[in-house]
């Protein structure tokens, strides 16, 4: 099995997949922390599903599906940002946009003349091994922009996320930060869809952050843990898929879920250790 794995690692498509996996995991792990803290799982789903519509639209007119995905999710982010910044409104706005976006997706699929299904099924369940060099470049560029962007606004974003009232009073442009984060979330979604597909998007955008919260109360460490878990799930998933006949996304979701369960089971233990350490 190990021999088989080493043999596989020689292929370009495998190397591409692993490079893409690292990029996607870092972005997803970072973003995931904020998705969990800001209660944005519904928005993640909408960004992915309307991203699917964008992708279908681009396939229809003969352009890159990856670019289409990015366009779809970015436009959705802008809509959500413009229409529903207040938390009370947000869920309904997201739902309204998602419903219409999916409707458009159905139209695009119906209009597509050739084989039905295949190209779209790939989007739904992820197909990292089909990533081309060109797409890889695009993924890398988007990942770089997102990571730099998150680095620049990491501190005020964290402040605005955990303590919005005081952040606003201290001069953090809370509205602007929210919209910028939505755009980065859209980019992260477009990236993660490449690995796990639209249907399993939450496994990379919720599970790592939710798991990290169970491991530590230190915000910086939690972010590092979140990225680590995303990397473990993604790379572990890709490698496991290489030696079996089961799709990558199954393994990614499984590894992520096992991490989460382990953290849930282990957090009382960590807590008691922490309590003992901080006791006088």
């Amino acid at each position, binding site marked *: 099995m190990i021999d088989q794995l080493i043999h596989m690692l020689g292929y370009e498509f495998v190397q591409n997949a692993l490079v893409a996996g690292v990029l996607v995991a870092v972005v997803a792990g970072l973003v995931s922390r904020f998705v969990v803290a800001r209660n944005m799982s519904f928005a993640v789903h909408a960004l992915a599903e309307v991203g699917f519509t964008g992708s279908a639209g681009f396939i229809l007119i003969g352009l890159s599906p990856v670019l289409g995905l990015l366009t779809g999710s970015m436009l959705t982010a802008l809509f959500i940002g413009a229409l529903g910044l207040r938390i009370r409104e947000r869920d309904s706005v997201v739902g309204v946009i998602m419903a219409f976006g999916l409707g458009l997706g159905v139209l695009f699929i119906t209009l597509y003349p050739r084989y039905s299904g295949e190209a779209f099924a790939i989007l739904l369940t992820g197909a990292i091994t089909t990533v081309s060099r060109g797409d890889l470049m695009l993924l890398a560029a988007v990942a770089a922009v997102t990571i730099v962007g998150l680095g*620049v606004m990491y501190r005020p974003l964290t402040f605005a996320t955990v*303590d919005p*009232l005081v952040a606003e009073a201290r001069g953090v442009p809370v509205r602007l930060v929210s919209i910028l984060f939505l755009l980065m979330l859209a980019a992260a979604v477009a990236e993660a869809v490449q690995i796990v597909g639209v249907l399993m998007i939450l496994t990379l955008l919720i599970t790592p952050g939710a798991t990290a919260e169970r491991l530590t109360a230190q915000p910086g460490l939690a972010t590092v843990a979140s990225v680590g878990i995303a990397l473990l799930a993604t790379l572990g998933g890709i490698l496991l898929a290489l030696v079996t006949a089961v799709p990558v996304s199954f393994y990614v979701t499984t590894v992520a879920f096992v991490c989460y369960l382990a953290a849930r089971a282990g957090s009382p233990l960590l807590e008691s250790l922490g309590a003992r350490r901080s006791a006088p």
Partner: protein
Amino acid sequence: MSERGHAGRRNLGAAPAIEEEPAICFDRATLAYSDRVVWSELSLTVRPGEFLAVLGPNGSGKTSLLRALLGLAPLAAGQLDVLGRPPRRGDPAIGYVPQHAGFDRDIPLRGRDLVGFGVDGHRWGFGRLSRDGRRRVDAALEAVAARPYAEAPIGRLSGGEQQRLRIAQALVGEPQLLLCDEPLASLDMRYQQEITELIGDWARQKRGTVVFVTHDVNPVLGYANRVVFVVNGRWAAGSTDEVLTTETMSGLYDAPVEVLRVRGRIVVVGEASGAGFDIDEPHHFPAPLGAHQ
């Protein structure tokens, strides 16, 4: 004070003896949201070192007053100067303590991190605190006696402990002016007293100015040297004894209201017409949400 009263609004008390740059100066200020006037023609001067209690029923614009001071709500008319200049967002000379809202139990955040936001949370970048920043966080934690639980997950702390950390967060930037928005809400009596003492003592020691929004004046009676009562767009300002009288309050509410002093506490009792208001009753225990309406 030196301000002149307007129809239905009054300033009570004598003019200050010494000319000094005021910490806050409202001059015929009006605040309105689209069509609704929150309060109008407010003229009020707060001198450095004064502790101003802002009183009034829910929805009377107490929080809006703080938002105006923070530069988050522009005036519709009139003028406002804070520390000698028009209010601006994120003024480092202003500290802010919000209402106790409680943190999610599992949020990865410690007291130390919350206070750290007071140092550089608004600054772009990844935000690793400098050595000096960490020293200031330690000093602020020390000042509110929060060192013992500074490393604990903040969601597991009591309301009183969380509010102490919030005060440390507000004071870590060494402000001249501290704005507190109902910092005592949903705290029990003991914590109410502790939190008020922390804020009052800071004001006395550093000669800091405090604007303290509260629906119950009693916890701050020992510290507040001025009060402003806002209701239905009207207001009255002066000392506690000047404003919280049967005559002034009845005038403000335009309805019979009686102010009683019982065992060193002030109780306002009344039945106002129409407004469905709740004047601050003595508030011994945290009431369930909506129980006061």
